[in-house]
C-alpha cells in the first residue's frame, strides 16, 4: 500500500533566486560568478566597522518585475529589516531582509497537472542579501575541524519567493518549480543557473491523514539546488514522516538538510536555541515608496510570459505538446518567433525547429542562443520546402550543411544542384523510362493495387537522385498510367 493511500502530502516552497544585476545589493562589488576567493569584496559587503548600505535600484526594479510576472500586488510602501543570527558566512551577523512589509505579495502561477490546470498561490516575495560560502576542511560540515570562509557571494541580491502550501504531490511541486524558473528566466529577472546555485529551494513538507483538513507538523529542508534533488529529497522525507506517523509518533518541527551523497535528510536542530531572529527595521536604509507610475514603467518591460506564449502558439495551430516544447526555454521560443515572422507554415517550422534543429544543437552541444544558424535561415529553408524547391529529404542534408558552414539554404541548394526537378517535360522523360522498365508494377496498379504507385514513385525519385518533386511525380505518374 502506498503512503499516499493513507496520507495526503502538503507542500510549500521557498525559492531563493539570485537577481540578474551587475552589482551586489548594497555595494558596487560585482556579482560575477567564480573569481578567486575573497576578491569580490569591499568594506561594505565585508561588514567592516562603520560601513553603510546603499540600495541598488536595479534590485528593486527586478523584484517588481518578478512580482508582476507572478501576479503579485506590488507594495506601495516597503522597507528592509534586520534578521539577526550568528553564522560565520554572515559578515554582520545579521541579514538585511524584509519582514512585515515585503515588496510583493498575494500572487499566483498556474501549473498543468494530470487533472488539468491548478493555481498555486504565492504568499510573498521579498528582497534580501545572500551570505558567503563556507568551505569545509574535512569531508562534510559535521566532520570538519575547521572551515574556510569566502565572502564573494555576500551581498549578492536575492528574491525569496514563498509559495502557499498548495501542492499535494511531488509532480505538482516539480511543475511549480519548472514554471517558476521558466517565468524568472523569461522575464530576465534571473539567469537561473541552477548548477551555479543561483536558484535554491527550501521545501516544507507535512503529511496528514487522508480526509483531514488540519495541517500536519512540517519539516523544512533547506538549500536544494536541482529539481532532481527536490524530487529525491521529497521522496525520502515523505517516507520518513510516514514511518514516524505510522509508529504513532509525532514529526518534529525542524529544519533539515539534504545529504545528496547518502540520499537522506538530516536534522539541523541545534541544542543551542530555538530561532529568535529579533527582526527590527533596518535603521541604515530608508523605506521605499513605490508609486504606480514606477510599477507601470516596469510592466512595460515585461515580455510575453510562457503561458501567454503557449496560448498564442496553439491559436497558430500548434498542438499543446508542441507549444509546451517550443516555450520550454525563452531562447528556443524567441528563436521560433523570429523564424515565424519570415515563414508561412507554422506547423512545418515547428517540426523542423523541434526536430532536426534541436537535434543538431544537442549533437554539437551548443545552446540555442549560440546557434550557428539564424532563425531567418531556418525560415528560408522551410520556405524552400514549401515552394517545392527542395524535398524534405534533401532538406535534412541541407540543414546539416547549414549548421556546419553557416551558409544559407538557397546557397547550398544552388552550389550542390539540389533543387527539385519540377520541369514536367524532364520528369515525363524519367517517368516513361520507369514505366517501361517496370511492367509488372504497372500491371499491378492497373489491376487496382494502389500501393504499386508508391514503388513507381520511389523508382522515379531514385532515377532523379532524389531531386524530383515527389508530389508532381505522383500526379504525372497517375496521368500517364491513365
Amino acid at each position: 500500500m502506498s503512503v499516499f493511500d493513507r496520507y495526503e502530502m502538503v507542500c510549500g516552497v521557498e525559492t531563493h533566486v539570485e537577481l540578474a544585476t551587475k552589482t551586489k545589493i548594497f555595494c558596487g562589488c560585482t556579482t560575477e560568478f567564480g573569481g578567486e576567493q575573497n576578491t569580490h569584496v569591499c568594506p561594505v559587503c565585508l561588514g567592516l566597522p562603520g560601513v553603510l548600505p546603499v540600495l541598488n535600484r536595479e534590485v528593486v526594479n527586478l523584484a517588481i518585475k518578478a512580482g508582476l510576472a507572478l501576479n503579485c500586488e506590488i507594495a506601495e510602501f516597503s522597507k528592509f529589516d534586520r534578521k539577526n543570527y550568528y553564522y560565520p558566512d554572515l559578515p554582520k551577523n545579521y541579514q538585511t531582509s524584509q519582514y512585515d512589509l515585503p515588496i510583493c505579495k498575494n500572487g499566483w502561477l498556474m501549473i498543468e497537472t494530470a487533472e488539468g490546470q491548478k493555481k498555486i498561490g504565492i504568499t510573498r516575495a521579498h528582497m534580501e542579501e545572500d551570505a558567503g560560502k563556507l568551505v569545509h576542511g574535512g569531508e562534510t560540515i559535521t566532520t570538519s575541524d575547521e572551515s574556510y570562509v569566502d565572502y564573494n557571494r555576500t551581498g549578492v541580491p536575492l528574491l525569496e519567493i514563498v509559495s502557499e502550501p498548495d501542492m499535494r504531490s511531488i509532480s505538482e511541486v516539480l511543475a511549480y518549480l519548472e514554471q517558476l524558473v521558466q517565468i524568472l528566466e523569461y522575464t530576465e529577472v534571473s539567469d537561473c543557473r541552477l548548477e551555479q546555485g543561483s536558484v535554491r529551494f527550501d521545501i516544507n513538507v507535512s503529511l496528514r491523514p487522508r480526509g483531514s483538513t488540519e495541517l500536519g507538523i512540517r519539516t523544512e529542508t533547506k538549500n536544494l539546488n536541482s529539481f532532481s534533488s527536490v524530487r529525491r529529497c521529497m521522496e525520502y522525507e515523505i517516507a520518513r514522516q510516514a514511518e514516524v506517523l505510522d509508529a504513532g509518533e509525532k514529526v518534529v518541527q525542524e529544519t533539515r538538510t539534504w545529504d545528496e551523497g547518502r540520499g537522506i535528510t538530516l536534522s539541523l536542530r541545534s541544542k543551542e536555541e530555538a530561532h529568535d531572529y529579533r527582526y527590527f527595521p533596518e535603521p541604515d536604509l530608508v523605506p521605499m515608496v513605490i508609486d504606480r507610475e514606477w510599477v507601470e514603467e516596469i510592466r512595460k518591460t515585461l515580455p510575453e510570459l510562457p503561458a501567454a506564449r503557449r496560448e498564442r502558439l496553439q491559436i497558430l495551430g500548434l498542438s499543446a505538446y508542441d507549444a509546451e516544447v517550443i516555450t520550454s526555454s525563452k531562447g528556443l521560443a524567441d528563436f521560433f518567433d523570429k523564424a515565424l515572422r519570415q515563414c508561412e507554415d507554422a506547423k512545418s517550422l515547428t517540426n523542423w525547429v523541434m526536430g532536426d534543429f534541436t537535434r543538431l544543437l544537442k549533437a554539437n552541444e551548443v545552446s540555442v542562443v549560440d546557434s550557428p544558424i539564424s532563425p531567418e535561415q531556418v525560415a528560408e529553408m522551410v520556405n524552400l520546402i514549401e515552394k517545392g524547391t527542395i524535398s524534405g529529404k534533401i532538406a535534412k542534408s541541407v540543414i546539416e550543411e547549414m549548421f556546419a558552414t553557416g551558409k544559407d539554404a538557397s546557397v547550398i541548394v544552388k552550389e550542390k544542384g539540389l533543387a527539385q526537378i519540377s520541369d514536367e517535360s524532364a520528369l515525363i522523360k524519367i517517368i516513361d523510362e520507369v514505366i517501361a522498365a517496370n511492367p509488372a508494377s504497372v500491371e499491378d496498379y492497373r489491376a487496382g493495387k494502389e500501393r504499386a504507385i508508391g514503388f513507381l514513385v520511389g523508382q522515379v525519385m531514385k532515377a532523379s537522385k532524389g531531386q524530383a518533386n515527389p508530389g508532381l511525380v505522383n500526379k504525372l505518374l497517375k496521368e500517364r498510367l491513365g
Partner: protein
Amino acid sequence: MKISRKDVEHVALLARLELTEQEIEQYTEQLDSILEYAATLDRLDTENVEPTAHAVPLHNVLRADEVKSSIEREKALQNSPDAEEGFYRVPRIV
C-alpha cells in the same frame, strides 16, 4: 521581577556572550532595574501612534547598478585573526 536568571542566560546565548556566574547575577539585577524604569512607558497611551524608526522622512535612496572596484584581498584579510590561502579560517561549525 521583570527578568529572570533563565531569561538572562537565554539572552546571553542569543547575543553570543559567555557570562560568568557573577555576571549573570549582576545583569539579572541590573537589567531588571533598567526594565523596571523602562516600564515608565506603560503609562503612555500609544494606541493610535505610529512608531518612528527614522528621524528624517527620507525614502527611495537608491544607487545605479554600476560596478565599482573591490578591494585587494590582502587588504580584506589584513585584519583577520586567522586567514589562510585567501580565506578566513574559523573553528569547526558543528
